[in-house]
Every structure is written in structure tokens, then in C-alpha cells.
């Protein structure tokens, strides 16, 4: 069978553009959700926050000033069809080169340090964190997610026991969000991973953030849990920017995976209202 050939230079070009677009264009589903949520907000300060955020999105998309100064660490999700032949150099180098060029050309902030202890800036926002999944077929999908530090620092995971069950999951999620308060820039989107193992559950929580905002899990029981959690999170009263109000979260997305008989891993990855992601399919 003929394998489909993709030149990695094309990937650099695509990533370069995606980085710039993602940081200045809030996705339409997020804008629509912010508008919808602002109508439900009862707090006057909360309503002001929504109107500033919508104005911010407008200014950013027109003037190409980033939505947020924290243009993030770039997380890249790759779905690589197994019938593709990548040529012209290293695939990962090509992605990082795209990040390097995109951040320089887009006047985006370099927020990556080469060593977590020495804390010296790499000055080009690389390396990205790249997750690759091999899929069937000959398509290549690249999604880039510039993820800010404030919301990432408010995230967490816990190895619950089977006895903890749904109650334990809810308790952990609510605790995490309550203690985060205003730090992750609410209104937030809550990505939750359930199952898998130690490292898988954190990945699931992050992947859950990629879903179109508010789109329920295909499994009915998880969809119900998403709805219940959204209601309970909003009952915390944290509100937009933590200034009190009805809307703390815009959506809760759960991703689940089979797990060990002894475990019930759960992870919460919080996404700020500037839920930036952009994808391309080759």
C-alpha cells in the first residue's frame, strides 16, 4: 500500500500559525458560553467581569494583542495516522521549531525555563509538551493548547480507593476548586480524569479540556456526573474572578478509562476562561 507522505516543514509552518491564532482568538464556543453565562450571573461585579472578558476577546482578535500575557506552555496533542510517512527531519523538532517561530513572530511571552531549579528562561518558549497518539488511517491532527500557569497550578490528582466512589470523587473535585478560589481565573472549565492509573488520569483530565465547551460525555452516567458537579461547583459561590456569584465554572468535562481493581484515580485539570486551543488536520 502507498503510504501518505508529509514533509515536516509543513508541520512547522502549521504550528507557527496555530500558536499565534490560538493566543489571540478565543474559540467561538467559548465566546458563546461566556455570553450565555453572563445572562445567568446575578452579581453586578460578576456581570462587569463578563463584559470586560468579552471586550478583552474583541480587542485581542482585532489588535492581535494576546488575550492573556500568560501565553502559556504549549501543549500539543498529535493524532498520527499509521499510514503516514513523515519526511524531511525530526517530527518533534519540527513542532518545536513551529513554537519557536510562532512565539517570536506573534510577540508572545516566553514562559518556559530550561531547568525547574536553575530557572533560566529558554527564551523561545520551547520545549513544548507533546502527546502523540497513533491512529489508524492516513490523517494527521495537531491540536495546540497554550496553557497558563495560574490554572495549571490549581490542578491536582488523587489516588482514591474503590470505597470512595462517586462521593469521594465529588469531594476531591470540590475541595480542589474551593481552595483554588480566584487563582485559576474563574469562570473556569473543569477537566476531570477518572480511572486509568497515576499518569493516565492526569492526561485524561487535560484531554477533557479539548472537548467543545459543554458538550456532554457520550456515556450517560458520566454526563450526569458532569451536570451534577457543574451545579455543585457553581453553588460554591466563588463566582467570576472569585468576586462572588453564580458562575464559577462554565463546564465540567469528564474523561474516563478502565482501571486496576485496587484503584480509583481522579485528576482535576483547571482551565481558565481563556480556553485557547486550535487544531489543524492534514
Amino acid at each position: 500500500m502507498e503510504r501518505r507522505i508529509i514533509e515536516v516543514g509543513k508541520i512547522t509552518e502549521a504550528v507557527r500559525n496555530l500558536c499565534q491564532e490560538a493566543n489571540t482568538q478565543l474559540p467561538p464556543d467559548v465566546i458563546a458560553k461566556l455570553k450565555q453565562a453572563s445572562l445567568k450571573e446575578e452579581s453586578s461585579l460578576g456581570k462587569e467581569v463578563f463584559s470586560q472578558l468579552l471586550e478583552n476577546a474583541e480587542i485581542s482578535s482585532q489588535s492581535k494583542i494576546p488575550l492573556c500575557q500568560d501565553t502559556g506552555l504549549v501543549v500539543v496533542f498529535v493524532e498520527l495516522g499509521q499510514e503516514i510517512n513523515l519526511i524531511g527531519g525530526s517530527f518533534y523538532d519540527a513542532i518545536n521549531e513551529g513554537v519557536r517561530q510562532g512565539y517570536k513572530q506573534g510577540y508572545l511571552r516566553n514562559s518556559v525555563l530550561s531547568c525547574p531549579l536553575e530557572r533560566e528562561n529558554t527564551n523561545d518558549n520551547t520545549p513544548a509538551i507533546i502527546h502523540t497518539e497513533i491512529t489508524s488511517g492516513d490523517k494527521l491532527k495537531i491540536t495546540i493548547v497554550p496553557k497558563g500557569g495560574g490554572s495549571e497550578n490549581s490542578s491536582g490528582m488523587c489516588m482514591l480507593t474503590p470505597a470512595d466512589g462517586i462521593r469521594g470523587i465529588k469531594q476531591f473535585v470540590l475541595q480542589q476548586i474551593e481552595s483554588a478560589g480566584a487563582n485559576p481565573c474563574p469562570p473556569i472549565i473543569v477537566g476531570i480524569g477518572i480511572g486509568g492509573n497515576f499518569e493516565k488520569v492526569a492526561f485524561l483530565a487535560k484531554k477533557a479540556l479539548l472537548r467543545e465547551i459543554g458538550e456532554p460525555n457520550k456515556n450517560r452516567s458520566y454526563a450526569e456526573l458532569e451536570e451534577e458537579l457543574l451545579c455543585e461547583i457553581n453553588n460554591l459561590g466563588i463566582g467570576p474572578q472569585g468576586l462572588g456569584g453564580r458562575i464559577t465554572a462554565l463546564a465540567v468535562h469528564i474523561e474516563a478509562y478502565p482501571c486496576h481493581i485496587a484503584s480509583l484515580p481522579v485528576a482535576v485539570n483547571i482551565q481558565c476562561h481563556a480556553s485557547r486551543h486550535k487544531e489543524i488536520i492534514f
Partner: protein
Amino acid sequence: MRTSIILKTPLKNEEIAKLKAGDSVSISGVIYSFRDAAHKKLIDLIIQKKPLPFNLSGQIVYYMGPSPAKPGAVIGAAGPTTSSRMDVYTQYLLEQGLAGMIGKGSRSMEVKQALKKYKAVYFAAIGGAGAYLSQRIKKAEVIAFSDFGPEAIRRLEVENFPAIVINDIFGGDLYQQTREKYKL
């Protein structure tokens, strides 16, 4: 829109004494932006009793590391970062006369008590509104630690910079008060 209290920097004690948690303010004048790395270095200088790059008395620090300015622009996106990471350093700066801080998110008990003791105030700006807030910055200049890039100390001239009083000098805490109000 709620009416805002107009503040000019440097802040005077009598102005600070009038501010209450929940007040909207509009700040004009010079403020200084810096965050984690510059705090660490400033505190090292204070401990070693070495001179600081600027006089903190009556000043406001904005916890912010901007994105780069495009050609012809004053600054890039310029919204607040999470303040709690600066909690361990804050008392040192308050001892030097720092009068206000702008950031986002709640402060430690120690900082809240220090605000009462040193008569200083903590404001929040809207996190993630970096493009919106950048328009209120009319001039920006790196004045120290330029090798820190986005974390360098910048002297900013702001006009009608919008913020909300979170912690006042009387122990008021807007985050706590409003959360209790809306909790179900």
C-alpha cells in the same frame, strides 16, 4: 457600571484609610510591575542591606509579566498573575513602605495581618484580561533586572487602571465576604 474611586500614585495614608474591601478604584500615575524572580532578588538586596533600584515608599506593585510589545506599542498583554506566590516576600516590601499591590487571588493570613499593621491595601485586576488592561498603560520602561525578560522590573505609567479592593487596612476581605453571600 459602579462608580470608581479615583486614586493617584504615590498613595497617601489618608486615601488608603478610606478604601474598603469591595470598592472599585481607578488608578492613575506610576506603578511598578514585577513578579516571582524580581521579588526574590529584591528581598536578597533588602536582607543584605543593599540599595534597591527604586524607592518603594507609597508605591504600588503590579504582579505582572507582560508579553512583548509589538513595534509601536507601549506594551503587550498585561494582566495580573496569581498573588499568593508573592506572599512569602510581601512583608519585606511592606517594611520598605510599599502601599499597595495589584494581583489576583487571595493572600495568606500573614499578608492580611501585615496589611493592617503597615496600612497597605491589596487590589485585584481582572485575570485574563491582558489585552483590555494593556490599553490603560501609557508608558512602560524596564528599570531593573532586564535579564529577567518578562520578569524584569518595569515602571509603568497608567491611566484609569481598573481594580477592586480585596483586602483593606481594617481586615476586610472581599473574596471571603462575597463567597459567603453566594454560597448555596
